[in-house]
């Protein structure tokens, strides 16, 4: 292990961390703008041109607010909660391949922090850890509503993780690999052997199940029961103020970013795009990779927009509907999807 390697990885980690924070920051702005446009309004437009400085103003406000820690709360866990939520949200980006390797000065730099061979499992682990931030925060607040919300979040995440995992199994039958890098490289280009290479076109049902579950995992509408205002006041962050509240809100947007990236990676070809070989021969591998990165971020932004679009369209599920959908709807569907996928693969390979 040489110094160059450490510096290279350090820069990559810093850049990815910065990008995910900036995207999360501007997701708050985008959310308000999208909401406004979908409701024939304008949205924030006072801070800077088109309100582009609104997230900065919000951040400054969050920092300046009075920090209140309830006297009856469990002080240590109360502080740990938001930190854990943000940490778990951020470390998910480590295994996502952002682009093809770039060559600088004869040195090949992979645009991925680390390619562990169980990348999908890692993502799953991190995402399910994320609920601990919510649970710990909700419990430590020593508030009935926060606790109820935390319990809701926990049971919701557990229910939907099963369907999510099952939908991934069907995908893994196709990919034969858990490494995200390999999964992406198998979706090279767009069209091959008479069919699309992107896994969305091979696993449409799996994608829909995965997407619904990732809505539930990120606690976004229509599955935002943990922060359902009408029943639970603010949900698990009722007692939080200042930047701790900011951390929770931020964690939600980073989670959204990560799950958009995962969806784009697993089902929409990651950084692959049509005619990428043509681009590589015309402009060189480096430019092709950079275009790939841009396209990957375009896909992520598309998914983030989709998250917001859904949020401003669909009302919240009732709790029993949520459980019904998870256990009676999605899990059987996911299992059926596995069986169908297995049968189809067997037919293609053996006959």
């Amino acid at each position: 292990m040489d110094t160059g390697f450490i510096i290279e990885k350090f820069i990559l980690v810093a850049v990815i961390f910065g990008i995910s924070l900036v995207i999360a920051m501007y997701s708050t702005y985008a959310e308000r703008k999208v909401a406004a446009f979908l409701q024939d309004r304008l949205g924030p437009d006072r801070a800077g041109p088109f309100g582009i400085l609104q997230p900065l103003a919000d951040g400054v406000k969050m920092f300046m607010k009075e920090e209140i820690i309830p006297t009856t709360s469990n002080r240590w866990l109360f502080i740990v909660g938001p930190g854990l939520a943000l940490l778990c949200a951020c470390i998910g980006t480590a295994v996502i391949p952002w682009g093809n390797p770039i060559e600088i000065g004869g040195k090949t730099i992979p645009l991925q922090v680390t390619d562990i061979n169980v990348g999908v499992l890692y993502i799953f682990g991190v995402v399910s850890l994320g609920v601990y931030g919510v649970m710990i925060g909700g419990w430590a607040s020593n508030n009935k509503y926060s606790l109820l919300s935390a319990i809701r979040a926990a049971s919701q995440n557990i229910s939907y993780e099963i369907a999510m995992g099952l939908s991934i199994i069907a995908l893994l039958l196709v990919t034969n690999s858990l490494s995200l890098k390999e999964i992406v490289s198998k979706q090279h280009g767009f069209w091959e052997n008479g069919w699309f290479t992107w896994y969305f076109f091979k696993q449409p049902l799996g994608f829909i199940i995965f997407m619904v579950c990732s809505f539930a995992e990120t606690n976004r509408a229509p599955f935002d029961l943990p922060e359902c205002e009408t029943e639970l006041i603010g949900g698990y962050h009722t007692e939080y103020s200042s930047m701790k509240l900011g951390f929770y809100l931020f964690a939600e947007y980073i989670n959204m970013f990560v799950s958009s990236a995962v969806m784009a990676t697993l089902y929409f070809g990651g950084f692959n795009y049509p005619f990428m070989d043509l681009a590589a021969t015309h402009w060189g591998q480096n430019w092709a990779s950079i275009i790939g990165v841009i396209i990957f971020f375009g896909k992520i932004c598309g998914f983030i927009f989709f998250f917001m679009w859904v949020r401003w369209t669909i009302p919240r599920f009732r709790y029993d509907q949520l459980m019904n959908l998870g256990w009676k709807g999605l899990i059987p569907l996911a299992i059926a999807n596995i069986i169908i996928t297995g049968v189809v693969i067997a037919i293609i390979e053996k006959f």
Partner: protein
Amino acid sequence: MESLSNKKKVLEQKPLSFMERMYLPAIAKGMGITISHLFKKEATVRYPEVEREFSTNFRGMHSLKRDENGRERCTACGLCALSCPAEAITMIAAERKPEEKHLYREEKYAATYEINMLRCIFCGLCEEACPKEAIYLDGPIVPADYLRKDFIYGKDKLVEAPLEMKK
């Protein structure tokens, strides 16, 4: 009991059909509706820069009018104060001196004239009661303020600005 109008409809709750239970068609329809609003004109009026026009019968802040020679029309008869259902108007009358002829139209005028904007309900009865066409509610919205005493508007705020005298 038999419904007389025959308009009553009993809604029966049917179990959801398969398509409805899938949620997805309904969700797609809803999302189509919301995305169509993305391309519609926004209803927002950007207030400080753009002001919405008042309707023609809007009643705003009072103004005490002047006549064509720039003299105050009010003769302090007190009919506006009498007609005011909220008792928002008070005045003190004074007699016009000969040298003030260019200032006041009538022989009697209002030395002080006060309207309490917190009491006023902007009904416009003062406007109707006035025999001299001296008071009209044609101003803007009364602005906010911090102290109650600042809402008692005197002549300095109510009387119209002097006319530009034509030569």
